[in-house]
């Protein structure tokens, strides 16, 4: 099996690579310290198995799985035992290794990976419009072939990152394969404002404002010069 390793910790990558090298059924195709590089690689290369860290800057392992088409088998690698239940939600996750990894536990994970066959149907992540989106309190997005309802009043920030949109709400984050314009069209204009070419914010969630940014929750969102007048105008109405 062709394998890749995705972990921001070099020590973890070195250890997993050593286990893979010693295993006759496995070949290391590549290693990545961040999920974005791995996504680009996966879009162009056939991979059979991913060793994936859960806790990474910007992207969690679960966010990563939701964004890739036709995810191969995944073995999660983490220091955190608490995600085992969530791991079961994902068909592609075949096992869950807790660091520090032992040889015996690694071997067991590979046996599980060999035993599992995934569906070959593609799992596309895309945004879809439905009738329910006429309701201004909610809209739906398509994630991993499931329609996910997002409550509009809970949305705090929408951020464009490459081909994906990150939708941050008060209790959960979503990553959707879409454009900022498409998501912007779903949101009520009296509540949401595009403050930067990559950011839309819920104006009711603003905590503080500085010259070139707003604070929403713990996130500092840049405000472009061209969008600032509209933001100021909008706030005068609050």
């Amino acid at each position, binding site marked *: 099996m062709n394998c890749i390793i995705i972990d921001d*910790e*070099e*020590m973890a990558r070195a*250890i997993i690579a*050593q286990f893979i090298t010693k295993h006759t059924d496995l070949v290391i195709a590549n290693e990545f310290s961040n999920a974005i590089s791995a996504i680009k690689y996966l879009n162009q290369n056939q991979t059979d198995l991913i060793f994936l860290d859960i806790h990474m800057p910007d992207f969690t392992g679960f966010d990563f799985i939701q964004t890739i088409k036709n995810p191969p088998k995944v073995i999660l690698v983490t*220091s*955190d035992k608490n995600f085992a239940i969530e791991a079961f939600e994902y068909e592609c996750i075949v096992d869950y290794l807790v*660091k*520090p990894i032992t040889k015996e536990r690694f071997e067991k994970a590979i046996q599980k990976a060999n035993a599992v066959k995934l569906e070959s149907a593609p799992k596309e992540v895309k945004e879809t419009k439905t009738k329910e989106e006429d309701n201004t309190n909610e809209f739906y997005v398509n994630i991993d072939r499931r329609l996910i309802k997002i409550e509009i009043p809970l949305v705090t920030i929408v951020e464009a990152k490459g081909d994906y949109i990150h939708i941050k709400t008060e209790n959960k984050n979503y990553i959707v394969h879409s454009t900022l314009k498409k998501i912007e069209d779903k949101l009520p204009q009296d509540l949401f404002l595009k403050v930067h070419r990559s950011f839309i914010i819920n104006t009711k969630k603003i905590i503080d404002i500085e010259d070139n940014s707003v604070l929403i929750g713990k996130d500092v969102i840049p405000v472009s010069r061209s969008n600032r007048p509209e933001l100021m105008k909008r706030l005068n109405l609050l």
Partner: protein
Amino acid sequence: MELANLNYINELSGDNVEFKAKLIAILKKELPEELAVYESYNARGDFLQMAQSVHKLKHKISILGLEKSYYIAEEYENNLKNNSTELQADFEIILKNMLDFVALL
């Protein structure tokens, strides 16, 4: 205070001297970097990011065979997520001991 050791690294490496040297080199490079990240978040009082840093450092604590220290780190990580710095002093002693140990490798 329990003592750091290379038992896990020795077990992983076996007779592979080159691989053992590689792991030690990574340890000597990454541990101070991760510690610096933790200290920068500590200086800002960013408890959530400090918890993330502690989470990352836990792996190195376990690699160095510090089992009791691992549980202290885990408890400290949870405390930080609940906006408490309880066990900070204990955790930072663990970090210092690790740094001192790694510096001698």
